[in-house]
């Protein structure tokens, strides 16, 4: 999929980014990027997904959060932020209403904390569940009261 011109110019001029799938942005600029993309017509919030990467020699323990927006019918753009464990990334709820449930799900399952989220509760698992099951260090074979 080729990158549309207005998207490429927005990314190069406003954010100093080369078009890629996905883009990698700094946490401090992600809300601004989302706003600008919404401004040029990327109004469709497709998903927010996170994945956990345990600590390696080079990197600390961290999660990656990926958002995908679409400009209907054909264009789409994905951008990701890296969030070290213990820190938070700004929530996109102020820009896209759909970020609410999506970020709650990622918080619930992967454990990424979204700052300024209006309602950051668990959504899939019970309120008193311990741990975040989609983390790589989640012990799936440990017996635990009462569910696992």
């Amino acid at each position, binding site marked *: 999929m080729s990158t549309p011109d*207005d998207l490429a110019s*927005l990314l190069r001029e406003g954010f100093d980014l080369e078009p890629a799938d*996905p883009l990698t942005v700094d946490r401090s600029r992600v809300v601004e990027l989302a*706003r*600008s993309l*919404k*401004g*040029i*017509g990327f*109004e*469709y*919030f*497709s*998903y927010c*997904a996170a*994945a*956990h990467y345990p600590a390696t020699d080079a990197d600390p323990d961290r999660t990656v959060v*990926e958002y*995908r927006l679409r400009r*209907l*019918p*054909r264009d789409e753009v*994905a951008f990701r932020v890296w969030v070290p464990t213990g820190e938070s990334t700004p929530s996109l709820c*102020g*820009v*896209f*209403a*759909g970020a*609410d*449930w*999506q970020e709650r*799900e990622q918080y619930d*399952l992967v454990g990424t904390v979204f700052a300024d989220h*209006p*309602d950051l509760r*668990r*959504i*899939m*698992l*019970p309120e008193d569940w311990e741990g975040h*099951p*989609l983390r790589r260090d989640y012990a*799936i074979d440990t017996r635990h009261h009462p569910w696992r």
Partner: protein
Amino acid sequence: MAVAHSEEAHEAPAGPVPTVVRPWADPYLDPETYDPEGDLMVMNLGPQHPSTHGVFRVKLWLDGEVCVKAVPYPGYLHRGVEKLCEKLTYVQIPPIVDKNDYVSPYINELAVNMAFEQLNAVEVPRRSQYLRTLGAEMQRVGSHLLWLGTFAMDMGGALGGGASAFMHTFRERETILDCFELWTGARFHYNTLTVGGSRHDVPAGFAEMVRRTYETIRARTIEYDELIYDNAIFRSRTEGVGRVDAKLAMELGVSGPILRASGIDWDLRRDRPYAAYGELKINVPVRSAGDSLARYEVRMAEMRESIRLVLDLIDGIPEGPICALKPVKLPGAFKGKAGQAYVAVDGPRGELGTWVIADGTERAYRLKIRPPSYHAMALIPYLAPGSTLSDIIVTLGSLDPILGEVDR
């Protein structure tokens, strides 16, 4: 794209972008501010309720019978599918995701397998592409038939006219499952698609059976319209009920028939073709009203369109192999390349995506299903306030949620 707001959409913002002004209901409303006296009745709709299409729970604050605030609590059907997909191999994943959207399993398999194929740059043979298209369209008809029956039941009750519509749509759906049984050996959870193609070629006599089945259903869709759509009670129950704003729907990522009923002409089958859709002419039905009646119209039109596609396809499947790779039987026999992919297909409920990160082993590092119903259910806090309990049930039914894929 036929959206009324598109003229202001293409201006790049100058200076700081103002906070988004949202014209719809506030889902974060504090009931205390609405009613300091505390006279609101809090009602738990579900998880055990006949019309929640599974085990969905909504907490409603009711003023009389009018809803003030609605807070959904999904998760009662959470089975940890994404965690399972991390622990199982690529070969073992399709039968697991079959159970996500348990009304259209074929399209679930299609979504994950297409993601794996993109990840590994596997070219699927043309015959298999056509078979996949055929299966997806056959499944779409079955899924919409189930929706039609349950939607009527939401309004007419399990002991009334709704049940009659339900029984009739299920009669037709059974014949569709019979076709799939002949094809794949399973009525429902097929496990027929694999990386690189399909496992099962169509058997002898299949074309004749499919043609007979879908000709019958095409004739019967007229009966459904006569039974349901032409009924003044149905009209008054759905017209203007659960109106979805197109802007809100896009912000929430709502897709498929709900979005098309709100005036957005977008269909992944046509706009980002996959399988054999690039070679087919697809008419995408669009309505602008955005209410439950419009969603009914869109789904019925889609059903007719899918029946047409099935009847067109069944005679034109090209010859050739059905799988690019040798279908593997050992769970660990297929190793994926490292990388990342997101592939979306247009299921009966909308954009059904698979986001997969692979690390070069036989297992996916992380696999996320992007289910359309989950996004549709996020509409409930916006649609419920201001409508009565009866209308909430109708709205819920018209969104066609499958809780298996909402909760995963």
